[in-house]
């Protein structure tokens, strides 16, 4: 599968199979990411979401299939906050400057770089935190620091692994609004999430993944009982609320073993 110039594809995965050691995590995956898209990859644990993100980012090579990227495509990756070493001695300013690895080689930031860092931090409402250690921030501020680091690299495509994992509703809204705003300014975003209702249902495009692509399209087209059951291997119902699909667990009490019933 090649890039479609008219649709302004940024990258395309064609027949990608890959994994770790001899175990295939992704099997025959096809997908394209276009300019200005905002895409959510959903699926159960072990479905290959992070692996797909790594293949897109280029940090994992497929065993079979091809990954085609637009020449000169700049990508930035925001890892799961759980993987960050919060004890590492790095201030917000130092962390953000890391993404400027090409060009200027001396350790300290140039005047222009200092101004750019100040701008990007201010645009994310963390301008006054530049000299703070990354551990001294709230969850939302920490997430913003890593988004700021990604943005300073001036990417065309932002890849985010579980940006709202383990955060409360307020912070989830905060992150979603921020990403919406960045996308509106022209940045293509691909994120992985477990959160079907809080995140995925709000995105223009969802990819349901469970080792291979089960569904790909707008939430209304993808968040269906059939696609979700094939993705999650469990019974789920889809309701309509305020014009948006809402996924609910269709767990039934008769599934509870008889021995447990008296305890419920």
């Amino acid at each position: 599968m090649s890039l479609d110039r008219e649709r302004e594809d940024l990258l395309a995965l064609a027949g990608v199979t890959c994994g770790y050691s001899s175990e295939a995590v992704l099997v025959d995956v096809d997908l394209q990411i276009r300019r200005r898209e905002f895409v959510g990859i959903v699926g159960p644990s072990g479905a290959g979401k992070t692996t797909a993100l790594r293949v897109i980012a280029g940090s994992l090579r497929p065993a079979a299939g091809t990954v085609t990227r637009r020449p000169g495509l700049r990508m930035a990756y925001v890892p799961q906050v759980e993987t960050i070493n919060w004890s590492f001695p790095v201030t917000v300013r130092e962390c953000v400057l890391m993404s400027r690895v090409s060009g200027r080689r001396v350790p300290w930031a140039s005047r222009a770089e200092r101004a750019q860092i100040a701008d990007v931090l201010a645009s994310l409402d963390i301008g006054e935190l530049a000299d703070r250690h990354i551990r001294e921030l709230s969850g939302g501020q920490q997430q913003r620091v890593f988004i700021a680091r990604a943005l300073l690299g001036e990417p065309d495509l932002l890849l985010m692994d579980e940006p709202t994992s383990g955060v409360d509703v307020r912070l989830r809204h905060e992150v979603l609004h921020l990403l919406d705003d960045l996308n509106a300014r022209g940045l293509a975003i691909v994120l992985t999430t477990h959160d079907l209702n809080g995140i995925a249902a709000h995105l223009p495009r969802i990819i349901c993944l469970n080792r291979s692509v089960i569904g790909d399209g707008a939430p209304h087209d993808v968040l269906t009982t059939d696609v979700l059951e094939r993705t999650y291997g469990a019974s789920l119902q889809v309701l309509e609320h305020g014009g948006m699909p809402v996924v609910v667990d269709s767990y039934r009490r008769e599934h509870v073993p008889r021995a447990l019933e008296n305890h419920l």
Partner: protein
Amino acid sequence: MIDELLRPFEFEFFRNGLIVATMAGALCGAIGVYVVLKGMSYIGHGLSHAIFGGFAASSLLGINFLLGAGVWGVASALMINGVTRRRVIGSDAAIGVITTASFALGLALFALFGTAGRSFDAALFGSILGVGTDDVIAIFVVCLLAGALIFLRYRALLFTTFDPEVADVAGVNTARMDALLMVILAGSILATMQVLGVTLIAAALVIPAAIARMLTNSFARMLQLATAIGSVCGFVGMNLSYHLDIQSGPTIVLTAATMFAAVFVVTGATGRRRAAGITAPAPLVARPD
């Protein structure tokens, strides 16, 4: 009193030893920051033992010590780096096999053929006796190379140390950065072996970085502080070595350990909280799903 303190400076071997110890302290302090933050302390410890095998072989074969042990050290460093990155077996197990086997080989060679040239004890525990101009040149060259690497690859090294996977995506050749760091580490160990001894080099790598971490939350300041602390420990330790008539390696390390204890007490809970993280292994990559 002053005369007594200045007396050792009359001797050339002491002046050479002092220059080497001060530069070795600074070098190990700077490289130690990366070693500690990448969770490579065991690699530093193991590599110094591995180089001992090269030291023994070059000593017995009559080839230049720096060349023989240098080639051996770089080969061991790259081997360890390769095994660590491939994750075929646990990196600690791989390092244990490669480095202790090399150290054991060195001991066996000395046991079979006896020592020739450089002193066995000096290699193990360090000595200011026998520090010559070639040692001063060697440490100067390694300092220059390490300084150039840190200065010109500062951002890429920091990114690789903090977040290797994201650095990779951002275009940093993290494999090359790791290999360069290992080669410089091998060179640092080689150049400081005469003064510090293979059994104590790991302490010179770890302690200044640990002290610096207790004093700051900034990477740049930690790098500067660790370099300064390492050089002060080398200078003071070498002087103490002469006046107390104790081998240079132990006095330098004990000086650093004393400074660590003092900073640990003075910085209190803040310092302890900062330093707590550096004993942890490098950040784990999230289990991919």
